[in-house]
């Protein structure tokens, strides 16, 4: 890790590209039904940075609001989900799979909504586990 650490990413078709500066604050998993629907995946995974670390370098993501707390941003040309942007707070949550160096991201430290985990999806021993979200179970 260096003072100049940065990570790049984008969607499948390349219409949207971004850069984030510095090491991520945390990596987590979410088993909630909304994340599962949007990603189509049984293992949605997220990397969080400070919002000011993110710069969109190409294109403009579309947004969709499924809850009243956040906007889900994606590429309108290929559908790739890119960011979960909360209305409040200083963070930006980046979908792990959009990062060019996704395999270099640290192991997740927490998982949300484990009560909705698919029966065959493996558990991640040793990480902080919430049946729903912090403060809800």
């Amino acid at each position, binding site marked *: 890790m260096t003072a100049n650490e940065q990570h790049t990413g*984008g*969607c*499948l*078709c390349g219409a949207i590209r971004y850069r984030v500066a510095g090491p991520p604050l945390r990596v987590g998993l979410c088993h909630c039904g*909304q994340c*599962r*629907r*949007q*990603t*189509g*995946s*049984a*293992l*949605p*995974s997220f990397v969080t940075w400070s919002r000011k670390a993110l710069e969109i370098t190409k294109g403009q993501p*579309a947004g*969709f609001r*499924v809850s009243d707390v956040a906007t*889900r941003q*994606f*590429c*309108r*040309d*290929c*559908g*790739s*989900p*890119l960011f979960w942007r909360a209305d409040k707070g200083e963070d930006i949550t980046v*979908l*792990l*799979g*959009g990062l060019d160096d*996704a*395999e270099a*991201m*640290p*192991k*997740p430290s927490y998982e949300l909504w484990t009560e909705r985990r*698919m*029966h*065959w999806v*493996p558990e*991640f021993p040793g990480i902080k586990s919430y049946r729903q979200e912090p403060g809800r179970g």
Partner: protein
Amino acid sequence: MAAMREHTGGCLCGAIRFRARGEPTKTNICYCTQCRRQTGSPMASFVTFAVTGFELLSGSALSYRASDFATRQFCGRCGSALFWRRDGSEELDIFLGSLDRPEEMPMPQKQIWTRHRIAWVPAQPEIPPFKEGS
């Protein structure tokens, strides 16, 4: 003879809804980098149905071709990943997460492109692995 089962699904915003009849002919996990980008996730999962048993009930999916042999479809309003179809195939791969009751689907029969699996994703040795596609 028992009535054929029906499985319904759709995107996050509800603009696109579909129904698949019968049981999936195949189920898998895919770790390829294209699926990783489209799902934003380290692991994509599919259930495969015959196109003859598949019906779009509402909406119209957008398409994107990331390779020269298949089309990926998604909802243009909410970005949800929906289908992958090989050109000319009589089958359609449905992204597991788009189903209303994905927990009713059988567990994956195989894992493909394991050479792209991210190191911290558990290997699940009970599901036959293939380093590339199969």
